[in-house]
């Protein structure tokens, strides 16, 4: 793995075109510079890379399956593959990044981890790694998300983490992130902040991308092994953008491969209740980075909404902003309803219950199916499994009078 490879032309380190940067309080600057230095050294150290790869294999269970979804393929008339990040230990792609960062934290001598979480998957992954390495762990989570993802709150507690409820603002991922940053400002000396997506101040977007690129690297190898060629298109959901960035990154210099991100349209982009940053965000500076944000004219960050706690964020990682800017990647917004239908669709067609986040990518696959030819290879990154969402989907089904569970035998 070579972090420098594929990096778009940038003026300064940590910049993706005009996006990125390090807009952090002076109190955090020494910690960010220390992190950058430690990260560079670690990535140049073969023993660090070996530790990371061993953990991915022996603990996370990689490589993850590259699964030919035959029933989806025949329904949609193209070769559909699922990159099964849901089969990783802890049930999502988040563990890839967390294992890398926690190894780094250990190398830096930090004894305490903090993290923000939306859906709870990143919090669970961080709590898991903290248990594995014997570190203490505090996870910040919005009150609203603690309710929608109650199962994950209990999982984190079982793993020995403290879950701190965040009630400010919209009480979701945005506020949990602000609160984690506040805590890091208090304790930068002994605390490592494990950011869960390709966002925040430099070097985080780069670190998280480099620890998630294993997804795309494996897709490349597995697709070559099966077909002897590259995939036609890659589809992944984008919250902050880490599973998508990990999927896309090894293919950025392969112009024949379409890179497609699915963001959250919530109740619809014609309503104020959505989180479609790529479609409606404007450039700005927030949470340490210059990127696209949903905001009002004076720069107040907008309250956003998605059924999916993991996509319910008013910003996007800066490298995605740049990929959209240059036209290298394309992004489309998927509504709650479309995602819920795709959730039930995959369960029925393939016997796989996907995370509601990942269901956005599946819904986009379904919508775009007409664009793909029979011998195309379309890979959807299934970023996580859906156990955490079952209760919320059941409630959604009842509230909206949907019929997701009709029995086919009658």
């Amino acid at each position, binding site marked *: 793995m070579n972090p420098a490879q594929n990096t778009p032309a940038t003026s300064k380190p940590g910049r993706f075109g005009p996006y990125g940067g390090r807009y*952090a*309080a002076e109190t955090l600057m*020494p910690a960010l510079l220390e992190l950058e230095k430690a990260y560079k050294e670690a990535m140049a150290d073969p023993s660090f890379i070996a530790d990371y790869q061993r953990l991915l294999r022996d603990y996370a269970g990689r490589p993850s399956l590259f699964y030919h979804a035959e029933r989806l393929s025949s329904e949609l008339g193209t070769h559909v593959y699922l990159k099964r990040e849901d089969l990783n230990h802890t049930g999502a792609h988040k563990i890839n990044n967390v294992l890398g960062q926690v190894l780094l934290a250990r190398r830096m001598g930090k004894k305490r981890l903090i993290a923000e979480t939306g859906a709870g998957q990143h919090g669970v992954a961080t709590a898991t790694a903290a248990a594995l390495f014997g570190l203490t762990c505090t996870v910040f989570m919005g009150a609203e998300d603690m309710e929608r993802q109650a199962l994950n709150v209990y999982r984190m507690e079982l793993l020995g983490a403290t879950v701190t409820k965040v009630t400010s603002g919209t009480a979701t991922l*945005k506020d949990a992130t602000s609160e984690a940053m506040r805590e890091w*400002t*208090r304790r*930068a000396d002994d605390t490592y902040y494990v950011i869960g997506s390709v966002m925040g101040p430099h070097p985080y977007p780069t670190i998280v991308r480099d620890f998630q690129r294993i997804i795309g690297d494996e897709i490349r190898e597995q697709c070559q092994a099966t077909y002897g060629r590259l995939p036609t298109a890659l589809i992944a959901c984008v919250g902050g953008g880490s599973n998508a960035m990990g999927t896309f990154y090894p293919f950025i210099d392969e112009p024949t491969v379409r890179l497609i991100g699915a963001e959250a349209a919530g109740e619809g982009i014609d309503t104020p209740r959505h989180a479609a940053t790529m479609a409606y965000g*404007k450039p700005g*500076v927030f949470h340490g980075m210059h990127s696209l944000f949903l905001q009002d004219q004076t*720069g107040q960050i907008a309250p956003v909404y998605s059924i999916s706690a993991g996509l319910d964020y008013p910003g996007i990682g800066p490298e995605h902003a740049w990929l959209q800017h240059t036209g290298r990647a394309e992004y489309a917004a998927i509504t709650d309803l479309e995602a819920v239908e795709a959730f039930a669709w995959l369960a029925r067609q393939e016997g796989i219950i996907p995370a509601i986040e990942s269901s956005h990518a599946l819904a986009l696959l379904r919508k775009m199916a007409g664009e793909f030819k029979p011998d195309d290879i379309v890979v959807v990154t299934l970023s996580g499994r859906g156990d955490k969402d079952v209760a919320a989907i059941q409630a959604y089904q009842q509230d909206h009078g949907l019929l997701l569970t009709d029995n086919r035998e009658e």
Partner: protein
Amino acid sequence: MSDLPIKVPGTSPVTPDTPATTATPTNRLEKKLAELATQGRKALIPFIVAGDPDLRTSQAIARTILHSGADILEIGVPFSDPSADGPTIMAADARALAHGTSIVDAFHLVRELRAETQKPILFLLYYNTVVQMGLDLFFATCRDVGVDGIIVPDLPLEEQDEVGPIADSHDVIITRMVSPLSGPRLSELTVNGRGFVYCVAALGVTGERSELSADLSTFEMAVRAVSPIPRALGFGISTPDQVRELAAGWDGIIVGSAIVRRIGEGHAAGLNAQQLADQLGIYVSSLREALDEGTLAALQGG
């Protein structure tokens, strides 16, 4: 905010002002600091949030504070997600935003205050507020209205390449910030700085602290050794006793959350604008007294 109800300098180019190093500064902040230094006095720098609890009241409070011994006024422009602030200032921002206080209102507030004061006024804001207004328009408006400098917690020196020269060309100071962790960065952070260097007294976010860090004197000496400009200490300072004690070592004292908390409590207790302003005036006077006593005691003590 369809129309900016603020007179914005039109196409006429703004003459760049002489840089800080010249003998007679034109910026109110630099003038005031020079004047205080000559008098052997220390700067008292209270902080309020524009529009907290409403615009008219914050104006009354600002006016009273300026008459109660403040040398420099720091005005916070409310932000939806103030990630460098603790609960007290977060709550003040939320109160101000609840009735839509915007950057335009904050500029209006300064314009009204300028009718009666030539004391330096600084904005504390998050960088997105500046970016969304547009750098040129923002700094031109600062100059036009009379905002002498800004403090931007999420704009480190490393990210000032583009904005620095624009601020300079309008003679608006971007305040340098340093923290006890800045260590080897201190001289790089203070060299070429203008106004005062904002020294963050405590790690973490804004908020009152009953005990200040024991290491403050180490920090003070480290900054003193390298900084070519006056040093103001902020974050966590809330009592006259603390101010009295700190007077010896620092050129200025910034008091934020302690003031903002009193505004929040007074508002919740149903005080009207005048009562709130009076109460804050008494508190700021007590800080002034403590600062002057501490300064004098330090002089007498050698």
